[in-house]
C-alpha cells in the first residue's frame, strides 16, 4: 500500500484533524475507499484535486484553496497534509506553500497545518505512518518541562489495541498520550448526526506537551529512531525513549509491562497478573493442538516480528516471515525475538510482493498463514490452509477494528483464534463429524 495512506491514518489519530492529500483526486478517493472497507466508518480525506493545469504549473493555488475549504466546511482544528507521488514529482514545496498560506490568510483563524512528504515511490504505508508522526512531533511539540505524561507511540495497531493500551496505562496510574489515537475516530459509536470530524483523537495540547513528557514508549523493533517521533523527541527535547517490540504474545508483553512497572513505580495490577496467568494456562491447555504446526507470516514489519515472537512461544514454527517493507532490520528483529526458542530463525523476506510470498509458501507448505485479507486468495485458499486475519487491510471479515493483538488480552484472543482454526480444520477434514475434539 502506499505511503500517503499511512500518513492519512496517522493524522486520523489527532483530535479535530482532517487528512489532506496534495495530489490528484484519485489517490484520495482510492485511499478512502480502502480505509472505509477496513474500518467501516466514514473516512473523509480531502484532496487538492489537481487537474492537468496544476500538474504542470504547480499545485500551490489548489492546495491553498483546498485548505481554506476544509477549514471553512469542516471546521478543522488541524489539517494534516501529505504529498503524493504527483506533487513530489512536480516539485511542489509544500512547506513553503503552507508558510505562504499562513501569511496570506493571517487575518483568519487558521488551523494548525502539519505537512509531511510522502512520495509513495519512496516507501510503504508503514513508513508514511511513521513519517507523519515524526512530522507531527517535529512541527507541533514544544518543550513544556513539567508534563507528567508518557508519550505512547504504538505504531499501526487496531482501534481495540489502542483502547486496551489506554486501559493498561490507566490501571498503572500513568498518564498516556497515545499518538495516534484513532480508536474512537475510526470506530465511532452510533450518533444522532453525521459528525463532520469524528470525535476523539489525541488533542493538540497533548501533542504540544510531548516535548516535556516524562518518557516516550515506541513500539517497533524495525524502526530506526532517527526517523521516528520518539527519536525526535529524545534528540530535541531529551525525552527518554523506551524502544520496545510490539507487545504481541507473552514475552514481548512482559517486556512492556516491565517498563510500565518501572515508570509507575508499582507492580502490575492484579487483573493483569491474572490475565497473564490465564494466558499461560491457555498456552498449556492448547499446546497439543499447535505443537509442531508451521506458519507463514506476512504483513507490516513490526506486526510480523510480534507475530513471529508469539508463534514461536506457543509452539507454532514460523517458516517464513515476509513483508513488503524494506527497513533492512526485519531479519535481525525476527532472529532476536525467536532466538531463545527456535533452533534456527525463520526465513525472512523483505520488500517482497504476494507473488513471491506465494511461490515460497507453496514450497514450504505451512499449516497456517497469518496476515491480512490480501493473502486469502493467493495464499490460504491456494494452499488450502486456514488464514488467521490480522493487521491491515481486513476486507473480507467483519470487525477489523476490533481485532486484538496487543497485551496479554490480545495474545489470549489470538491464541484462541489460532487453536480454534486448527480444530475447525481438523473437524471439517474429518469424515466422521466429531462433535467433540
Amino acid at each position, binding site marked *: 500500500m502506499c505511503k500517503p495512506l499511512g500518513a492519512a491514518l496517522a493524522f486520523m489519530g489527532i483530535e479535530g484533524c482532517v487528512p489532506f492529500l496534495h495530489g490528484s483526486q484519485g489517490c484520495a478517493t482510492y485511499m478512502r475507499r480502502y480505509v472505509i472497507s477496513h474500518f467501516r466508518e466514514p473516512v473523509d480525506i480531502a484532496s487538492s484535486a489537481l487537474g492537468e493545469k496544476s500538474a504542470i504549473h504547480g499545485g500551490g493555488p489548489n492546495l491553498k484553496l483546498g485548505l481554506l475549504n476544509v477549514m471553512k*466546511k469542516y471546521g478543522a482544528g488541524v489539517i494534516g497534509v501529505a504529498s503524493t507521488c504527483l506533487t513530489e514529482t512536480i516539485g511542489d514545496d509544500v512547506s513553503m506553500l503552507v508558510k505562504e498560506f499562513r501569511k496570506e490568510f493571517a487575518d483568519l483563524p487558521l488551523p494548525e497545518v502539519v505537512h509531511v512528504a510522502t512520495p509513495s515511490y519512496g516507501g510503504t504505508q508503514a513508513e508514511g505512518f511513521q513519517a507523519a508522526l515524526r512530522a507531527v512531533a517535529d512541527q507541533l511539540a514544544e518543550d513544556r518541562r513539567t508534563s507528567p505524561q508518557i508519550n505512547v507511540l504504538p505504531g499501526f495497531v487496531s482501534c481495540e489495541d489502542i483502547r486496551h493500551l489506554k486501559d493498561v496505562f490507566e490501571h498503572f496510574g500513568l498518564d498516556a498520550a497515545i499518538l495516534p489515537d484513532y480508536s474512537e475516530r475510526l470506530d465511532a459509536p452510533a450518533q444522532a448526526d453525521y459528525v463532520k470530524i469524528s470525535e476523539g483523537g489525541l488533542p493538540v495540547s497533548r501533542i504540544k506537551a510531548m516535548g516535556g513528557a516524562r518518557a516516550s514508549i515506541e513500539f517497533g523493533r524495525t524502526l530506526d529512531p532517527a526517523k521516528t517521533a520518539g527519536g525526535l523527541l529524545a534528540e530535541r527535547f531529551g525525552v527518554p525513549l523506551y524502544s520496545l517490540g510490539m507487545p504481541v504474545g507473552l514475552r514481548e508483553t512482559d517486556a512492556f509491562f516491565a517498563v510500565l512497572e518501572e515508570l509507575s513505580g508499582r507492580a502490575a495490577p492484579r487483573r493483569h497478573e491474572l490475565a497473564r496467568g490465564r494466558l499461560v494456562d491457555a498456552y498449556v491447555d492448547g499446546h497439543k493442538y499447535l505443537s509442531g504446526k508451521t506458519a507463514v507470516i506476512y504483513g507490516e514489519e513490526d506486526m510480523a516480528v510480534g507475530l513471529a515472537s508469539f508463534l514461536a512461544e506457543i509452539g507454532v514454527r514460523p517458516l517464513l516471515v515476509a513483508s513488503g517493507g524494506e527497513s533492512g532490520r526485519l531479519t535481525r528483529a525476527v532472529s532476536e525475538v525467536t532466538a531463545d526458542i527456535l533452533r534456527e530463525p525463520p526465513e525472512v523476506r523483505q520488500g517482497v510482493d504476494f507473488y513471491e510470498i506465494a511461490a515460497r509458501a507453496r514450497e514450504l507448505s505451512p499449516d497456517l498463514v497469518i496476515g491480512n485479507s490480501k493473502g486469502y486468495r493467493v495464499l490460504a485458499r491456494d494452499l488450502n490452509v486456514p488464514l488467521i486475519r490480522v493487521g491491515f487491510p481486513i476486507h473480507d471479515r467483519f470487525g477489523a477494528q476490533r481485532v486484538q493483538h496487543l497485551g496479554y488480552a490480545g495474545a489470549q484472543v489470538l491464541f484462541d483464534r489460532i487453536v480454534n482454526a486448527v480444530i475447525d480444520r481438523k473437524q471439517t477434514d474429518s469424515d466422521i463429524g466429531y462433535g467433540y475434539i
Partner: protein
Amino acid sequence: MQPVIFEQRTDQIRRTATGEDFAIACNRDSLAGAVSQRACVFCGSRVVLYPIADALHLVHGPIGCAAYTWDIRGALSSGPELHRLSFSTDLREKDVIFGGEKKLEAALNELIDRHEPKAAFVYSTCIVGIIGDDLQAVCKKVAAQKGIPVIPVMSEGFKGNKRAGYEAACQAMMRLVGTGDVSGIPPMSINILGDFNLAGEIWIIKEYYERMGVRVVATITGDGRVDDLRRAHGAALNVVQCSGATMDLARMMQSEHGTPFLRASYFGIEDMSKALYDVARFFKDQDPGMMERTAALVQEELAVLLPELKKIRADLEGRTAAIYVGGAFKAFSLVKSFRHLGMRVAVVGSQTGTEEDYKELAAITDEGTIIVDDSNPLELSQFIKEMDVDIFVGGVKERPIAYKLGVGFCDHNHERKEALEGFAGMLNFAREVHRTVTSPVWRFTPRRRGSVARTMRKEAVS
C-alpha cells in the same frame, strides 16, 4: 453551524419544481478541499478494461495505484482469471528520476512470458504523465517481440475525471476491434457493451438474448476475451449499457465499421424489457418470430417476479430513497425500480452525469427532489437527513454515511457481489432493499429512533 454547501458548488445542486426549466452545472473539475466521491482517469479505464480476463493488466506507476485496484470488483470470468491480479511496475525514486521505460519493458517481458496472456494493457498513471515515459514506444517494441497486442492506456489520473478514463479505455479496445476473423458469425448477432459481469450478471442477460435467438459475439467487457473483442465488428448490432463507460467504443465502431448501436439498461422491469424488445425490433425483418418469442420470455419472467414483488412491496409502500451513483444512466433505472416497490426517490445524484442526464432525472422524479452533481459526504449526509430517507443506494464510500445516519443501504456499484440485473436481479434488488429497510436495527440508532418508531406505530394502527 456553518452551512455544508460550498459556495462554489451551489449551481451543482438543484431541487426540481414543476413548471420550471431545469438547469444544473456539471462536468467540472472537483473542488479542491471538497471530499469528492470521484476517482481519477486511471480508475475509469481500469473499471472498464479490468474484466477482460485473458489479458494482462499492468499498471505503470508507483505501487499504490495498482494495489488499490487489486481485485476489488465483482467482475466474474467463466474461464481465465488473469484479470484478478493487479500488476505494477512499482516505480521507485530512481525510476522517477531516470525514467521508468526500462523497468516497464522488463516487467512486460517477464509477465508475458510467465502468464502467456492474449494481450496486455499498460495503464499510465499520474506520475508517468509527468516523467514522460514513452509508453507507446515501449508497448510497440514488446508487441513486436512477443507477438501479442500490447496496448497503452493513456490514463494519467489528473487529466480529467473518470469519464476521460472511459474514453481512454475505449480507445485502447478499439485497437483490438477489427483485427479478428469474423467468419461464422450469424446475421442476428450482437455485442453486449458496458456490462462488467458483476456477480455473473452478464450470464443472465446473455441467456435472455440467446433465448430470443440472438447470438452474442463479444461481451464487453464482463467475462471479456481478447479474441472476442477482435471479432466484435462482425456483430450486427452493439447494445450499450450505462451512460458513460463504453459509449465511445460504440461510436467509434459505428464510424469505422458501420456497426449501429442502441442503448440499454438491464436494471428494473421496464428497462430490462425494453432492452430485449429493442433488439427484437432491430431484427424483426430478418426474424419475424423474434418479437413474439421476446414477449413470451418477458411474460414468463414477470409471472415469476411480479407476485414476489407484490409481497415485498406491501412492506415498502410509501418509503423514500436517496441515490448517488457513478453514472447517471443507472439512476434512471433505479428511480423506476423504486416505483415498483412503492417507494419515492427524494435525492438523486451522480459523479459524472451530463446536463441531459440531469434534465431527464428531473423529468422523471417528483417535485422537490434534490438533484446533485459530484457530491461529497457533507452534502450527502445533509440531504439524507433533510429528506429523512429510508435507504441510500450508492457505493462502498457512501455506505458508512448511510449507516451513521441510521439509514438502510444498498451497494449498487462495481464492488457488489449481488446480481441486480435482469428480472432475477430486480428480485434480488427488491429483497435487498426490503432486508435493509425493514431491519429492526434502525429502532436503536440515535437519530432515527423517533421517526422509525412513529412509522411503525402508524403502520400498526392502520
